[in-house]
């Protein structure tokens, strides 16, 4: 796990998504740990039509690696303002750059208090160690 990167300025969920907060908006993706566990990502299904909403701890999409299918679970609630269309054809960006080019969507937070339920990088790392 030493070579995996979990930036200190992000918040983390138990289902391995990260959240970058910017005012009343947040960007969501999956963590370096998650992409590493999945291996080569070949396909992703996101709520492509912006204006859809997501709910904390509920599924927002599916991700496929060569080996397996997994569900994506939203760490926060709100309405989506932007989706990363690049992932449709180049989902491997999630492997290569999970926090930058591999972002999944931007959401306008409907309940910012939900952020308090998420972990900081130190707690997330401890959570991973205990798995």
């Amino acid at each position: 796990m030493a070579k995996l990167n979990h930036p200190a300025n992000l918040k983390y969920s138990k289902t391995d998504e990260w959240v970058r907060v910017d005012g009343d908006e947040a960007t969501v993706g999956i963590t370096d740990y998650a992409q590493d566990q999945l291996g080569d990502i070949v396909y992703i299904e996101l709520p492509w039509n912006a204006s859809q909403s997501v709910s904390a701890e509920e599924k927002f999409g599916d991700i496929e690696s060569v080996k397996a299918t997994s569900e994506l679970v939203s760490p926060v609630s709100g309405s989506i303002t932007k989706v990363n269309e690049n992932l449709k054809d180049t989902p491997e960006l999630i492997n290569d750059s999970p926090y930058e080019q591999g972002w999944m969507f931007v959401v306008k937070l409907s309940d910012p208090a939900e952020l308090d339920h998420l972990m900081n990088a130190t707690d997330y790392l401890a959570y991973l160690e205990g798995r």
Partner: protein
Amino acid sequence: MTEEDRAAASLKRTPLYHEHRALDARLVEFSGWEMPVQYSSILEEHRAVRARAGLFDVSHMGEFRVEGQDALAYLQYLVPNDVSKLAIHQALYTQLCLPDAGAIDDLLIYRVGEDQYMMVVNAGNIDKDFAWAKQQSRNFDVQLSNQSDETGLLALQGPEAQHILQPLTAADLSSIRYYHFEPGQVNGIECIISRTGYTGEDGFELYCPSSRVVELWRDVLAAGKERGLLPAGLGARDTLRLEAGYCLYGHELDEATNPLEAGLGWTIKLNKGDFIGHDALAKIKEHGLTRKLVGIEMTGRGVCRSGYAIYAGDQQIGALTSGAPAPTLNKNIGMGYVSAAHAVPGKTVHIDIRGKHTAAQITALPFYKRQK
């Protein structure tokens, strides 16, 4: 101890376990064994095997020795393929069938000597197969021994395999034809050098004493480094065999599936005399198949996986037994059983991917055949 550690504690490991750890492999449970699913990336390992070479630890496979004056008669009774056709140092692919033709396992049989054979079976079926083989041997003068623990097995697969292996052995590899083998030393280690594999590429499988398989692994990896050889895990093994259209026991084959519907009719020799499952197979052949194994190629967006339902219109006509992205073909493919009337290459079907019916096409197998 985490839950994962506890689960791992009951899993079997090959002698190469510490090599895999040292190479930073991701280890997973595979039919009771803790095995490497990937070292770097499944895609990278898959492509290495197609373009250059990959080295697989398949020491978890089972090996049974069959010896005695009735060895041939016994094997002829035990399996549907014609073992009498084997020359010494030749191998064949066959199955163990129940009397109702259901497949207990699929396996290779090697003719090692005049009355000496080796059966190579799937790791998850070793105990079941050995008990069955033993039980069926009662009326024959044969000795059976399970040598799985004493036998290591590496698969060196890919177009560069012969170039990599030749400097390590005095055996003339170019003279070993497909499904033939030679006993010989590889860097001083006594091996059976077999031109077989499960990837759709040229290559060799090397059987050796398990006490020396670590040495053999290191020697072959070092010898292949310059030619781009990579250690390859079960993940790549699975995508490679899927592209090549090979059955995987537990997916395309099981006790509720007969070899004829699995497309293995070429291995069923009804005219060779009696064998277990003969009458059931003859009857199935006479009445025709109710379902058939087919290839599935996604035309719509999505990856098909084992267990997904296959539809023609509103009607479910079958289900997938395997499915994955095919790295060589850049498509999403699978194999599955559909009712015989629908088993027509080119036919449009739909796959239920998490409730969404996604377009696909039935295709002939295999998906991939190497250029010779």
